[in-house]
């Protein structure tokens, strides 16, 4: 059990930080240790999701096994990590040292209050349960994958050997949960309901932290207040069963919760950074364009409609950029970079 929890923490915390380090260091605005850690964590998770999506969709449609999918993903992740280490050594080692030696920034009172609220929500995700019927599909799909070493081979509701809906197969978020459970050796249901939701809450907080950094550059106090207000709005966000806040705190193990509370706010945050970049330099860096692509893939993992929602958000924002900044080239590039992720929506539309 303890070993499983340690492995899970490594997969959910350490791995994203390692994978996201280069992306965090390639952002010139990242100057402090805290910012580096959180930016790495968020971008690394996006990268891991983006890598997991095409591999798993291929495995699902080719009727491969979970063990096969896990092996391929781990090999692919190791190759990517190797490439990232080479890039880090070649380009960002000096910057990493500089950032790590920078003194820790002050933390505002309201920032601490926000952290406490989020920690409270993370703890509550372990001790409180929310009964949601959709778990009978999502969590069972993950449990079935681990138990029978198959991917979407059986009807989750009954266990009879019928093919699952294509709608779900092109967004295999339950297989991510299955992967975490398989590698950690913990019971899938325990992972899905107890050991996974805190990650999404932490990711959601991290995205808000990055958003606060973009909105209030150099003003720790305003950032703290922003995070505090956001945490209160989330904590009391049960005004509707459809709100992203409800999904985050009640149904974090479902892909749509990750889409609503983590992925889409992440894309908004990325678009704010891009807007500032366009305003200052008239250009968008390759880093941010690549992140748009990854975000599209990651959103597709969460939900079939995720890729399309991502495109809608990027497309509408690009339209605004074109008018506001009188720039056609980069907004068009933004849309183009998001198009590969639409392959999963197309796959579903063609195959259904």
């Amino acid at each position, binding site marked *: 059990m303890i070993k499983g929890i340690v492995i899970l923490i490594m997969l959910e915390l350490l791995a994203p930080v390692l994978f996201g380090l280069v992306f965090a260091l390639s952002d010139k605005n990242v100057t402090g240790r805290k910012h580096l850690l959180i930016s790495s964590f968020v971008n690394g998770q996006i990268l891991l999701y983006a890598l997991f999506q095409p591999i798993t969709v291929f495995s699902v449609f080719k009727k491969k096994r979970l063990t096969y999918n896990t092996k391929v993903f781990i090999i692919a992740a190791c190759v990517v990590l190797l490439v990232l280490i080479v890039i880090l050594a070649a380009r960002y080692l000096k910057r990493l040292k500089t950032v790590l030696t920078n003194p820790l920034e002050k933390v505002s009172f*309201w920032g601490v209050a926000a952290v406490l609220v989020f920690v409270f929500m993370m703890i509550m995700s*372990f001790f409180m*349960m*929310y*009964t949601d*019927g959709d*778990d009978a*599909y999502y969590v*069972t799909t993950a*449990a079935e994958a681990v*138990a029978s070493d198959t991917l979407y081979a059986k009807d*989750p*509701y009954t*266990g009879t050997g019928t093919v699952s809906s294509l*709608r779900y197969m092109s967004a295999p978020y339950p297989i991510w949960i299955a992967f975490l459970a398989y590698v950690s050796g913990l*019971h899938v*249901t325990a992972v899905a*309901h*107890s*050991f996974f939701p805190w990650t999404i809450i932490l990711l959601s907080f991290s995205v*808000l932290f990055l*958003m606060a950094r973009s*909105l*209030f550059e150099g003003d720790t106090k305003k950032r703290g*207040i*922003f995070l*505090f*207000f*956001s945490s*209160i*709005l989330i*904590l*009391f*966000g*049960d*005004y*509707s069963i*459809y*709100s*992203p*806040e*409800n999904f985050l*705190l*009640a149904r974090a193990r479902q892909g749509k919760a990750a*889409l609503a509370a983590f992925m*889409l706010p992440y894309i*908004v945050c990325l*678009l*704010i950074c891009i*807007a500032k970049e366009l305003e200052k330099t008239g250009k968008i860096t390759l880093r941010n364009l690549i992140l748009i692509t990854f975000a599209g893939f990651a959103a597709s993992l969460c939900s*079939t*409609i995720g890729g399309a*929602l991502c495109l*809608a*958000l990027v497309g509408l*924002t690009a339209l*605004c950029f074109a008018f*506001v*900044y009188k720039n056609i080239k980069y907004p068009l590039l933004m849309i183009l970079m998001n198009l590969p992720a639409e392959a999963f*929506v197309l796959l579903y539309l063609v195959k259904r």
Partner: protein
Amino acid sequence: MFSHILPVIKEYMGVGIVSVLFLLSLFYLAVTEKERAKRVCFVYVPVLVLIFFLCPVSYVIYGKISESVTYYRLLWLIPVTPVIAYSAVRICTRFSGLKQNICILAFAGLFALSGRLMYSDFYMIEAPNMYHMPVQVVDICDALHAEGREIMVLMPYEFQQFVRQYDPNICMPYGREYMMNIIVQTDELRDEMMEGGRDPEIVGHLATERGCHYIVVSQFEDFAETPWNYEEFMNIDGYKVYRIIEAGPNMWALQD
């Protein structure tokens, strides 16, 4: 088409105070925000998304790609929480010292009152275990689990959404699709159990035909007599378990 879209908005808004706060924030930012980057992401794009959402063509296109019942997800493109929080920060930081802190607490109180505490939700309860499952489900599944084999169990209505999350080796003749009204074909066993008279003779025959190794029923909803071809096996957590006596065709026999 608006007759389809408006109920979606209504349901998404809930009580509606958060939506009012969002619209006020949007208006405030539209009037006061000078930075173009923030105006684009927090004013122009949300307004465009709203227009896009209200457009009947979007509803039709969305319905083609996904299901119309999830049309509310288009509203997730609007960063409601960040927009409200950002506007509130801008208002609070116009003051300083004690006035600022009072303003922050007032906004926090307003936000708390505008929604509802997630943990006060009717469906949010204290988790009895790390599986977040009713204890009875865990106990019954553990008791019936057959290592390396799948078993077919007729489970009570209240367990159907939990059983296979905990133990996917337990199959069910019918599952949660009944609760969701996804009934694509007639199911005599399901109808007899859920809507019929729960006749022990009929249930026993149908359950044997469907390969059910066990039948689990609440003690409050027990059969008038033991179902045909089944015997009482155990009582556990207020539920009675019946075990098949003679396995039906295409069905592996249980061993003691």
